[in-house]
């Protein structure tokens, strides 16, 4: 499930008003949430003090802001809170290291590509077992792939097997199995892909599901099966103990984990509304809290029972220009607007400093981040005014707003969706900033997300606020290619398309990440110059936990996402 987690949070980062955010799958890119390097230093709870030797026992309580949908199967789940317990109960083949490369072995012992990079051989470890004691073999992996490729599969992970040869045919019902998959023995499998790509591994489904449990069911039956809803059989350091629909999920230690057994007896996930979750954390009623709004940071820091951490996130907010509107086709105007918005103030004021101003599609945490663009568009209203003037935008009728080069009044409309409190607050701020450089921007009524994005897709708006949440793999196709459905600004640029393709498909990019990075550097600079977006900010992910829990690792993916060494967590005897 690691690869396939649709990140809901980002879309509406930050906030108290989870109401809408949790439920709307909104705009999210898929983000692979996986384990980083094991050698990454774990940061023990309770900074500085020596926590002593880990002991077994104890229970940790986590909160979910809304009830999970109860589909506890990595292939089928869609809700954010279904995936949380799945992180600890289902293992992946491989995990991301701290450099965002898939190098850490999980259920796979090793894997290698053929010379043409089109065929991948995966060797599974032989000592891993399902929670019911059955061995985990490549049959379980192939079963997962074939379930996703099955014509009756209606989940959203199809793209994660699509690149395997024969997936298309299977999905169309023309074949019963994947022609590109060859089982060598119980622990070895060869997969052939349609074409070689730099991100083959990142885009391949990597979570086996127990074939013996689901044997003979088609995907429609699998979703409803008891093995999905009541007693899922997984492979991780924890196993399901009790599922109370709509209320809580209790996990208990898996005594037969292939790695080091977990210290904790239990992990409980319970539903606590976001409005009271902060209080519950401070009160010790829950031990972990994620998705903390920036304005909570300082007050939580003051609580000596809590550890509060933040890290850069793979998500950002932006203001898009609809380039199909004639008045927005002037690059100079777009650049002036970018200079004219005080994004630093947004980060300082709205995010209380817990975020960064962004000038490119690549988040700072990514290896593809382009240092050169760090300060590309500083806040400079004077420069903005100068650019406008040079491009012919001047205030001739004395109403304090500029007219377009033909002398007609220029009015722009800014639209934004509901659901993300920080974004909602940023809209009037942008309008005020742009007024200062002489642009007349009207604020549209906020629209409900579904409707908003429908209109964005149909290119009905002029200026619009939206956000993306990204995968560790930096491939921007899907939202930046000229013909992409989600290329919201409708920015068409041959050069850009060429670069995006080159970064994934060219031999040099496949073989050398540094080369790939250079291609992306060229691409981000092109985007920055053309300015189809104003990149606004990237908000930090803030998480906090009770100091009684020791051995917690906090890295670029936070503390509790993926299985993140949950087996290392422990609670001192006197605090259990």
């Amino acid at each position, binding site marked *: 499930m690691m690869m396939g987690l649709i990140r809901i949070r980002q879309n509406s980062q930050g906030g*108290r*008003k989870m*109401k*809408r955010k949790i439920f709307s799958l909104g705009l999210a890119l898929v983000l692979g949430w996986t384990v980083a390097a094991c050698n990454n230093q774990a940061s023990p709870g309770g900074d500085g003090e020596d926590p002593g030797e880990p002991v077994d026992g104890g229970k940790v309580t986590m909160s979910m802001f809304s009830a999970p949908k109860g589909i506890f199967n990595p292939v089928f789940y869609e809700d954010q809170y279904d995936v949380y317990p799945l992180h600890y109960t289902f293992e992946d083949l491989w995990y991301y290291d701290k450099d965002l490369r898939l190098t850490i072995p999980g259920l796979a012992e090793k894997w290698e590509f053929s010379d043409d990079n089109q065929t991948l051989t995966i060797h599974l470890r032989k000592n891993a077992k399902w929670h019911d004691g059955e061995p985990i073999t490549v049959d379980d992996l192939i079963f997962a792939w074939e379930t996703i490729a099955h014509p009756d599969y209606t989940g959203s992970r199809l793209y994660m097997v699509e690149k395997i040869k024969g997936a298309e045919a299977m999905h169309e019902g023309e074949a019963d199995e994947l022609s590109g998959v060859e089982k060598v023995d119980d622990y070895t499998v060869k997969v052939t892909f349609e074409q070689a790509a730099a991100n083959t591994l990142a885009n391949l489904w990597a979570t086996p599901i127990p074939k013996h449990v689901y044997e003979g069911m088609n995907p429609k039956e699998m979703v409803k099966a008891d093995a999905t809803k009541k007693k899922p059989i997984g492979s991780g350091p924890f196993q399901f103990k009790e599922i109370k629909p709509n209320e809580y999920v209790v996990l208990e230690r898996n005594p037969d984990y292939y790695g080091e057994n977990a210290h904790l007896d239990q992990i409980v996930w319970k539903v606590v509304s976001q*409005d*009271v979750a*902060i*209080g519950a954390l401070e009160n010790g009623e829950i031990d972990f809290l994620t998705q903390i709004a920036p*304005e*909570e940071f300082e*007050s939580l820091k003051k609580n000596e029972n809590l550890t509060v951490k933040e890290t850069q996130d793979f998500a950002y907010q932006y203001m898009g220009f609809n380039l199909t509107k004639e008045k927005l086709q002037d690059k100079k105007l777009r650049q002036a607007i970018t200079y004219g918005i*005080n994004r630093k*103030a*947004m980060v*300082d*004021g*709205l995010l*209380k400093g817990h975020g960064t101003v962004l000038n490119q599609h690549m988040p700072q945490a990514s290896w593809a981040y382009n240092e050169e663009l760090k300060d590309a568009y500083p806040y400079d209203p004077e420069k903005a005014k100068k650019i406008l003037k040079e491009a012919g935008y001047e205030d001739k009728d004395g109403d304090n707003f500029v007219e377009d080069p033909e002398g007609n009044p220029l009015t722009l409309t800014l639209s934004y969706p*509901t659901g993300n409190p920080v974004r*909602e*607050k940023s*809209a*009037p*701020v942008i309008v*005020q900033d742009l007024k200062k450089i002489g642009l007349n921007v009207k*604020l549209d*009524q*906020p*629209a*409900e997300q*579904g*409707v908003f994005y429908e209109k964005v897709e149909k290119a009905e708006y002029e200026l619009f606020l939206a956000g993306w949440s990204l995968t560790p793999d930096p491939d921007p196709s899907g939202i930046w290619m000229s013909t992409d459905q989600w290329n919201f600004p409708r920015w068409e640029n041959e050069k850009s398309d060429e670069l995006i393709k080159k970064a994934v498909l060219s031999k040099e990019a496949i073989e050398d990440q540094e080369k790939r990075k250079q291609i992306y550097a060229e691409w981000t600079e092109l985007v920055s110059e053309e300015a189809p977006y104003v990149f606004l900010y990237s908000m930090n992910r803030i998480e906090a936990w009770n100091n009684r829990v020791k051995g917690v690792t906090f890295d670029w993916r936070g503390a509790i996402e993926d299985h993140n060494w949950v087996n290392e967590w422990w609670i001192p005897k006197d605090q259990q």
Partner: protein
Amino acid sequence: MQESSIQPKTVEMQQPEPKGKPRGKSPLQLALRRFFKNKMAIAGVIILAVVSFISIFAPLFISHDPLATDLYNTNAEPGGEHWLGTDDTGRDVFARLLYGGRISLIIGLVTMLGTVLIGAVLGALAGYYGRWIDALVMRLTDLVLALPFLLLILFVIAVLAETSLWILIITLVLVVWPQTARIVRAEFLSLREQEYVLSAQAIGCRDSRIIFRHMIPNAVAPIIVNATLLMGLMITVESSLSFLGFGVPEPTPTWGNMLNAARNVRILSSEPWRWIPPGFMIVITVLAINFIGDGLRDAFDTKSTRR
């Protein structure tokens, strides 16, 4: 909504008409006299007047723009420049409180007027003409009344997908009118048989004249009572809708969306200046309106004394 379900039931246990009440005055005058003897009602009038005054003339009391953000002065504590501190985008809470009062009162007032207008017209038509008009209107009210109030509002707002002050008000009106319509209809059913109406019909008065000149004025008491209580209810409903994320959208201030700050337990405990003022204003305003409504009900209800 809530009030009306109780109202009709009380009639039966009314106390017999008190003896020796002054004669020779119009019912309206009598009602007003009774109204002004009711201390709570007077308190309500005064509170509402003060609240309305400071909201309408907000610029006299505060120079801050309720929409002006200041990202370098957010969540400031009360005092100095900002009497009640600032909110999370650095807007002046006091200014928002006063201007927000305008919006909240507009919601209450306009919804009430709209409801009364639609409700009274449809109710009057149904009560006066009877037959198929009555059947049609009554089935419509049955329909709307069978749907739980808040659920229907949420349903409509969800369907509209965009919210604004006016969309909200129209939705509220569409959902609340049946109550008023029913009250007016019931009143008209009994008025229709009154002699002065019958005689007006007999001398060939136009229906519109009979309805508007003769019947409406006589049905005005229950309408007014119903309307005041509705107004209070609407202000509360707006804040509940804000809580669910369907209220008047930012940046427009309303007491409801300001009170929403209290949903965060930290703000609830450590930044009381953010929620006590709007909370207090909502409660006190609705309280005042309820006092007035109650006073009016007692005043118009000729059968009752101060109970």
